[in-house]
């Protein structure tokens, strides 16, 4: 199976400048040596605490920011070094939807304008643009009456569906969804998730779905990647990673995320201690060790690499084989 997206050793270090001459005083290692692949038609869920680098990975995939190292390939073509003309062609194959639906459209332009721009700028035939927009609106269950409104005149769910429609107008192969439902109410979230799944089936889309809500990620993903302080901690099939996690960090996340029924109260909980440390001054060895309940000397000294523990299931933990078995969570 040929992956649609291949990310290898991706790295983004932001410079922090300070002082009179704005010299580089330190680096924020937002994304550090991250590798994964997404197969065509698959959804990869990307989970992690705030500041773990999820959005930075998303921006790197679309080259909205330039990587400081590593490579991103889409259908075998390198994205990080593509020349402008090739980049424009590559961009048509990728779309993105952001968390804040209200801020995702030009506040001074009507919806119609926002939906026309991607088609116009990519040289679509003018005569057919309006038909394409109407067809796409229907796909996200919206009527043409919204076209003459301004973004602030729509509800959050409508705004987010317009964002999805806009991202799909260019018929991309990959859609990056950066917390697409975090700002929405439960019932509206359900609408948007259903539409995303329907569209994936209809167009054979590939998703990178970023979220911090494990229940949502479990529901939409085929595989899940767990990120902590710029590094991948665990990646594998959704059932394996979320129901029987092998990394203490994933176990901690799963234990912290609220239950789906009051019957699950009093379940065994591996709670992670304290706060995550700063990205500027990272711990030695395993980045999790100051918060990890199972840490040993080796964790403070050697950085663990991702190891394949079961077919397709990788985790970066020295102790993965020797951890107490976590209680599987019933759903």
């Amino acid at each position: 199976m040929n992956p649609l997206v291949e990310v290898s050793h991706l790295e983004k270090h932001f410079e922090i400048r300070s002082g009179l001459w704005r010299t580089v005083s330190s680096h924020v290692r937002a994304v550090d040596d991250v590798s994964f692949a997404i197969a065509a038609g698959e959804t990869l869920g990307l989970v992690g605490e705030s500041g773990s680098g999820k959005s930075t990975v998303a921006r790197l995939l679309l080259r909205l920011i330039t990587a400081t190292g590593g490579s991103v390939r889409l259908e075998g073509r390198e994205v990080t070094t593509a020349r402008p003309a090739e980049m424009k062609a590559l961009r048509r194959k990728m779309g993105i939807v952001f968390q804040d639906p209200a801020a995702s459209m030009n506040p001074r332009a009507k919806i119609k304008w926002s939906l026309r721009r991607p088609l116009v700028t990519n040289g679509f035939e003018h005569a057919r643009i309006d038909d394409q927009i109407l067809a796409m609106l229907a796909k996200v269950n919206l009527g043409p009456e919204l076209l003459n409104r301004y973004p602030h005149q729509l509800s959050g769910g409508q705004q987010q569906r317009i964002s999805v429609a806009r991202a799909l107008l260019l018929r991309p192969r990959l859609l990056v969804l950066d917390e697409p439902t975090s700002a929405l109410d439960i019932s509206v979230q359900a609408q948007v998730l259903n539409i995303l799944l329907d569209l994936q089936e209809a167009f054979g889309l590939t998703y990178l779905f970023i979220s911090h809500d494990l229940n949502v990620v479990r529901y939409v993903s085929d595989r899940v990647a767990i990120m902590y302080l710029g590094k991948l901690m665990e990646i594998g099939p959704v059932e394996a990673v979320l129901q029987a996690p092998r990394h203490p960090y994933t176990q901690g996340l799963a234990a912290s995320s609220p239950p789906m029924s009051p019957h699950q109260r009093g379940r065994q909980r591996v709670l992670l201690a304290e706060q995550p440390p700063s990205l500027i001054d990272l711990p030695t060895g395993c980045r999790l060790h100051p918060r990890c309940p199972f840490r040993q000397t080796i964790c403070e000294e050697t950085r663990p690499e991702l190891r394949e523990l079961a077919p397709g299931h990788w985790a970066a933990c020295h102790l993965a084989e020797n951890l107490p078995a976590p209680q599987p969570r019933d759903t």
Partner: protein
Amino acid sequence: MDQTRRALCVQHLDIQFSTPHGMARAVQEVSFDIHAGEIYALVGESGCGKTSAAHAVMGLINRINAPGHRIGGRVLFEDKDLLSLTEEEMCHVRGRSLGMIFQNPLDALNPLYRAGYQVYEAIVLDKIGKIEAWRRVAELFNQVKLSDPEARMRSYPQELSGGMRQRVMIGMMLARNPRLLIADEPTTALDVTIQAQVLELILALRAALEMSVWLITHDFGIVAEIADRVAVMYAGVLVEEADVLGIFDNPRHPYTRMLMASLPRGFKRDGRLRTIAGLLPDPTLEIPGCRFRDRCPAKIEVCATQAPALVEITPGHRVACHVAATVKGDLPP
């Protein structure tokens, strides 16, 4: 219900805001009791009136932040009707037995003073000695499980992480030994890992101090985790109230049932989620009958004319729906 075991009693609370399009009814005829020592959750989607209800109880809706508002009903707390108190009397209640924590603790803390001093100020109101007060601050910082409490007391709010700030806020409230703590989305701005710690803390303190907690949230996961009883609100009205198992295992109101079914619980292969068609009703319109009618798959004729009252269908389980008793099994799509 035993009169002496009620921490808060809200009766026919009605809140209207003045808007350019007329008076908007944010909360309508809402009545409920919070028992002593329980965690009572008020859940509902954005804009349904949760915060307005809490602010009315705290006396935080005034001429300055909501000109032209109207508040009706009674809020009984410690044998007083909070809605009839003067601002001065209300301040006294707020300073002692009624505490509130907010979604964004940074808004509630003063960036110019150290965290420890702000808690100290809250205690010194009680006219205890200075040294005694500082000792109590250190105790409180320990009690809310702030790591390295000495250092945290000397930090400014913006130097603390979201979870730590929320702990400081909780500590500040505990300083007054409140009988009721109102927590409005206390963990919405926090990561799940930190949220779990804050919820754990609220649970521990509730047990240690025997206070009641009125928890406002839109997250059913948090409700499942710590609530004892739950009220569900829709467009300004209470539609259902039961103990937490009643709400999760046997929801009766069509809105609650659809909301539960719209939560993602399984995998993609388990099928699509339930959605609720339509939009919230316009709060400035006077709506005859049930407010959920337009979106309800089980509606009958009477729903259009008569607003359903919140009635007890089984002990402790109240529902405001004409068809709740008749429609069993799955709702029509």
